[in-house]
């Protein structure tokens, strides 16, 4: 038995906005019968405002609930606002989905994306503003479920996915024959590496952060024992400090430095930091 939130239960029991809009301005589709779930989203526009939205879904309880709540989320919004909705927003609006069912929220998002693409035209891709991982994003990675490279990048990025299992739960990719699992693993590693580089601090940012951590987390602890610490200098990854008060001359000082000060700084700022006493 899945643990569905009250909202999911309500939406699969009483789905909102079911049906077709005969004179729809935009129609988005995602999934397929063979894969076990598919969704058709109909949108009626008034200028650039979504005046009405309806859906038809073949899928499980959470697929119906995701589709139903998506229509509620987009009605009344401008196209630009709707384009900002992610699969995570859909899941959050439902008060969460079981991990294994996250792909239902992804399907909702894909149908929305498909519909809005028709508004902007095929060439203009508003969703992948910083997609510089690949120039062939439409390439199918998982042939069992027809999942493209872009769909996987997007799921990793929006939801912060870290394992192949996560990606399978969110996109279904790798969930059948499993042959693409290696590729998915590489993609996650590529993404995390890039993510890590982006997060690298400039020297000034690093000094500020070290100073903040010492003031807020390290110093108060040492003060409790009647001592304290002063930041003297930062040279590369070497942080030079001075122990004062009861700490200066304490025979455990070098242990305090290594096990306490250095551990916290490694954890909070940079894992390559070394602490030296001056």
């Amino acid at each position: 038995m899945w643990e569905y939130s009250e909202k999911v239960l309500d939406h699969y029991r009483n789905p909102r906005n079911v049906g077709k809009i005969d004179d729809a301005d935009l129609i988005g589709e995602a999934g397929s019968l063979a894969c076990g779930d598919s969704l058709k989203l109909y949108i009626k526009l008034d200028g650039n405002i979504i005046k009405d939205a309806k859906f038809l879904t073949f899928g499980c309880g959470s697929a119906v609930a995701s589709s139903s709540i998506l229509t509620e989320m987009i009605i009344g919004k401008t196209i630009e606002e709707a384009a900002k909705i992610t699969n995570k927003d859909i899941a959050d609006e439902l008060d969460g989905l079981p991990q294994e069912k996250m792909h239902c929220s992804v399907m909702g998002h894909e149908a929305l994306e498909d519909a809005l693409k028709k508004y902007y035209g095929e060439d203009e891709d508003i969703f992948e503003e910083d997609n510089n991982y690949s120039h062939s994003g439409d390439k199918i990675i998982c042939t069992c479920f027809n999942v493209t490279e872009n769909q996987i990048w997007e799921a990793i990025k929006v939801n912060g996915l870290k394992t192949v299992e996560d990606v399978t739960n969110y996109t279904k990719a790798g969930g059948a024959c499993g042959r693409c699992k290696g590729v998915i693993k590489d993609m996650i590693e590529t993404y995390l590496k890039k993510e890590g580089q982006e997060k690298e601090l400039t020297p000034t940012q690093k000094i500020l952060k070290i100073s903040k951590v010492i003031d807020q987390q390290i110093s108060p602890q040492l003060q409790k024992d009647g001592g304290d610490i002063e930041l003297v200098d930062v040279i590369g990854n070497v942080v030079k400090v001075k122990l004062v008060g009861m700490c200066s001359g304490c025979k455990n000082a070098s242990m305090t430095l290594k096990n306490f000060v250095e551990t916290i700084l490694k954890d909070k700022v940079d894992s390559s930091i070394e602490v030296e006493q001056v």
Partner: protein
Amino acid sequence: MIYLDNNATTKVDEKVLEEMLPFLREEYANASSMYDFAKKPADAIKKARVQVRDFIGAESEKDIYFTSCGSESANMAIKGVLDCNKEKKHIITTKVEHPCVLNTYKYFEKNGYEVDYIGVNSQGELDFEELKSKLRKDTALVSVMWANNETGVINPVEEIGEYIKSKSPETRFFVDAVQAAGKIPMNVKDTKIDLLGISGHKFHAPKGVGVLYAKSNVRFTPLIIGGHQERGLRAGTENVPYIVGIGKAAELAQSALDYELKEVKRLRDKLEQGILKNVFNARLNTSISNRVPNTVNIGFEYVEGELILLHLSDIGVCASSGSACTSGSLEPSHVLRAMGIPFTALHGSIRFSLSRFTTEDEVDFVVDKLPAIMDKLTSLSPFQDELAELKRRKA
């Protein structure tokens, strides 16, 4: 609540519980002990062994080994036999076995064994000719389930056994009879079955007890090594109350077999016909008569199975589905795929399985309520044109 998921598990018969209770309360002695206090539990185990012997039609109660579940029985048979015949590295089984059997063979496949998986036709019937063509002199084990858990289709294990022994007498034959026990007559002594596994909770004993039958001339090594229990082939202090439970359940199932074959079948047929008549997108996944009497598997086209189960649950009806979404595995039932059930019906396949406790009112209720549920659910489906076509054809 209407419980139509008896192939998943069954309710414990009150009479079984009654029989067990003394051994959960005052008669707690270890059956292996030497004092008089241990006599009742020891005698109770002996009695249960005889009850199970008669239930499956074994020659001797010495061929009955109590285990903890059907999966253990299967593992004990498979691993035990292969361990005793290490020079033979070939196994034959079917594509539609229960995962507890299938995954055990996948394990051996990874460890140097060659495994042939025999297919089924669109009705779920085993390709006996294919099985014949795969049998070799170095086949260590052939493994075929007696009845399939999802479709209820009965395999001709008697004929298969005869064939195996006529061509390769040293090849062992294991039958997973978990879904046959209590549903059809079993008489292992008249067959060439070497080993057979059953599980108590599928015939109104509690969960946590099973049986492995092994013919007296079949050698196998124990799965659980330890004490002298079960003739040294399954160590662990005897689970007296549960062994008593499976014994009583076997006796009751034996005497209820006629009712099962006639009355349960009548109700199953009524459910099957009622649904096919009243629900326009219903399609029988297998229609052959050679099925256990309690099982029907119906595909509801263009509607997803989990959604059906959730709506059935909302009106208090329990059933199960072969759809991907119910398992969390993303792939629909391996059994229905092996049968080549079309995608339109595959994901919306529902299994109803009855028991001797199912009433006519319950069956009528489901037949009565299902059309309205299916009207609501088909109205959600993006395949409106296809559904309209189905409706037109049905009319």
